[in-house]
C-alpha cells in the first residue's frame, strides 16, 4: 500500500475545478486566497462537538505519523502540535515510554472549541506525565518564538492553509536546530470518487461545475515543499486508506465530523437538494462494491524534515572522492 516518493500516477480526473480555484486572486491583496480560513474555523468549531472519541481513520493516520518518532534516537522535550486531528496525537504523545521523550506539549488550533474539547479530555485523564499547554492560533501566523521547540507535529491540518510553504517555513523557524518536523496532509487522490460523482451530478443537473472538493497537494509537490521550506534530510511517503461507508451520505457525515468539509473561498454556497441526491446516487451506482458498501479513498502524504544542524550527515563535495567506483566493484567482485 505504501509507496515511496518516486511513485507517480497520472491525474485522471477533471482538473477544471482545481485550476479555476488555483488561479483565483482576491480583490484587495495579491495573495492567493484559496481557502476561507474563517469558514474553516467555524467548521472546526462544529467538528469539536461531533468528533467521536475514537475515529479509526484519524487514529491510524496519527499512529502512523508518530511511529516515526520511534525511529529517532533523539528525544524531543518540547513539542508543538499544530491543528488537525488533535485528540489522537495528544493521547499518543502523553504516554511516556513511546512518545519520543516529550515532556512539554503545546497544543494549537485555530478553533477555540476544538482546543477546549481537547483540554477537557486532557483534564479528565488522570495521568499528567506530560505538561500540556493550549493555545488558539493560526498556522499561517505562527506565534512561536524562533528556535524554541524540538518537534512540530501537524496531523491533517496543513492542507487547509493558503500559504503552505509559508506555514512550513514558520514551523522550521520555530524549531531548534536539529528539530524535527512531522506532517501528514491529504493528497490529491483523496476523495477521488466524490470528485467524480460531484462533477457528473452537477453537469447533469446544473449544466456546469463548481469546485466541491478542495484542491490538494500532489505527492510530487510534497518533496519540493520540504526543500523549499529549507528542511534538511527531507522524507516523503504516501499511504492510501480506503474507508467503506454504508452510503455516500454517511461519508459526508464523517467529513463533517472531522471538520474536513469544503472551505473554498470561491465556493458556491448553494447546493441544490436535487444535485446532492444525484451525487449520492451516482456515487452509489459507480463505486459501490459487492457487499453494498461504498469506498472512499484517503491519500495521506507524510512529510518529515529536520532543521539544519552541523551534526547531520551531508553529501560530500563533488569530485572529493579518492576511490573510484571501479575499484570498489573489483574489491567486492573478487570477494563474492
Amino acid at each position, binding site marked *: 500500500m505504501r509507496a515511496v516518493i518516486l511513485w507517480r500516477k497520472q491525474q485522471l480526473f477533471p482538473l477544471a475545478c482545481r485550476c479555476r480555484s488555483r488561479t483565483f486572486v482576491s480583490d484587495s491583496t495579491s495573495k492567493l486566497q484559496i481557502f476561507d480560513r474563517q469558514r474553516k474555523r467555524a467548521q472546526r468549531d462544529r467538528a469539536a462537538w461531533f468528533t467521536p472519541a475514537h475515529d479509526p481513520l484519524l487514529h491510524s493516520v496519527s499512529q502512523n505519523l508518530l511511529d516515526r518518532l520511534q525511529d529517532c534516537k533523539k528525544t524531543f522535550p*518540547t513539542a508543538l502540535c499544530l491543528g488537525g486531528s488533535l485528540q489522537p496525537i495528544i493521547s499518543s504523545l502523553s504516554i511516556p515510554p513511546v512518545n519520543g521523550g516529550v515532556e512539554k506539549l503545546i497544543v494549537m488550533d485555530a478553533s477555540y472549541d476544538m482546543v*477546549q474539547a481537547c483540554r477537557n479530555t486532557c483534564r479528565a485523564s488522570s495521568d499528567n506525565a506530560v505538561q500540556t*499547554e493550549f493555545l*488558539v492560533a493560526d498556522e499561517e501566523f505562527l*506565534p512561536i518564538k524562533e528556535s524554541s521547540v524540538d518537534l512540530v507535529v501537524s496531523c491533517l491540518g496543513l492542507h487547509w492553509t493558503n500559504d503552505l510553504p509559508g506555514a512550513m517555513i514558520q514551523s522550521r523557524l520555530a524549531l531548534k536546530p536539529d528539530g524535527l518536523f512531522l506532517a501528514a496532509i491529504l493528497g490529491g487522490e483523496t476523495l477521488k470518487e466524490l470528485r467524480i460523482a460531484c462533477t457528473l451530478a452537477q453537469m447533469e443537473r446544473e449544466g456546469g461545475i463548481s469546485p466541491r472538493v478542495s484542491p490538494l497537494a500532489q505527492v510530487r509537490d510534497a518533496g519540493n515543499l520540504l526543500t523549499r521550506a529549507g528542511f534538511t534530510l527531507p522524507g516523503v511517503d504516501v499511504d492510501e486508506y480506503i474507508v467503506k461507508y454504508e452510503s455516500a451520505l454517511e461519508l459526508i457525515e464523517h467529513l463533517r465530523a472531522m471538520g474536513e468539509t469544503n472551505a473554498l473561498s470561491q465556493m458556491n454556497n448553494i447546493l441544490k437538494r436535487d444535485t446532492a441526491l444525484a451525487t449520492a446516487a451516482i456515487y452509489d451506482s459507480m463505486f459501490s462494491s459487492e457487499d453494498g458498501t461504498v469506498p472512499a479513498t484517503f491519500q495521506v502524504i507524510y512529510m518529515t524534515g529536520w532543521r539544519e544542524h552541523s551534526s547531520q550527515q551531508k553529501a560530500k563535495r563533488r569530485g572529493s572522492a579518492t576511490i573510484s567506483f571501479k575499484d570498489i566493484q573489483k574489491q567486492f567482485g573478487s570477494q563474492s
Partner: protein
Amino acid sequence: MVRGSKEVLQKAAKTLSDILVCPLSKQPLRYCEESNSLISDAIGVAFPIKDGVPCLVPRDGKILEEEDVSKPENVANLSAVSEENQGRSA
C-alpha cells in the same frame, strides 16, 4: 471557580510566555493583568486570553486605541495596511 481559572490562566501565561511571540510581527508579547490579554507593542494589538487559553489568531486581536495606528476593519490586513502607509510615506 473564578479564582481557580485565574490561577490556571496565570500559570499558562507564565509557562507559555517564554515561547509565544506576536503572530504578525514575531516580536515579544507583554502580559497585561488589567485587561487579561497579551499585548504586542510592536503593532499595538491586544490578544485576549479566554479561560486561560491565549487566542493569537490575528482576527481575534484588538487594536489598541492609544496607539496612533489608523484603525482598519480587521487585523488580518494590518500588515498590508502598514506596508501601504510605508509605501506612501517613502
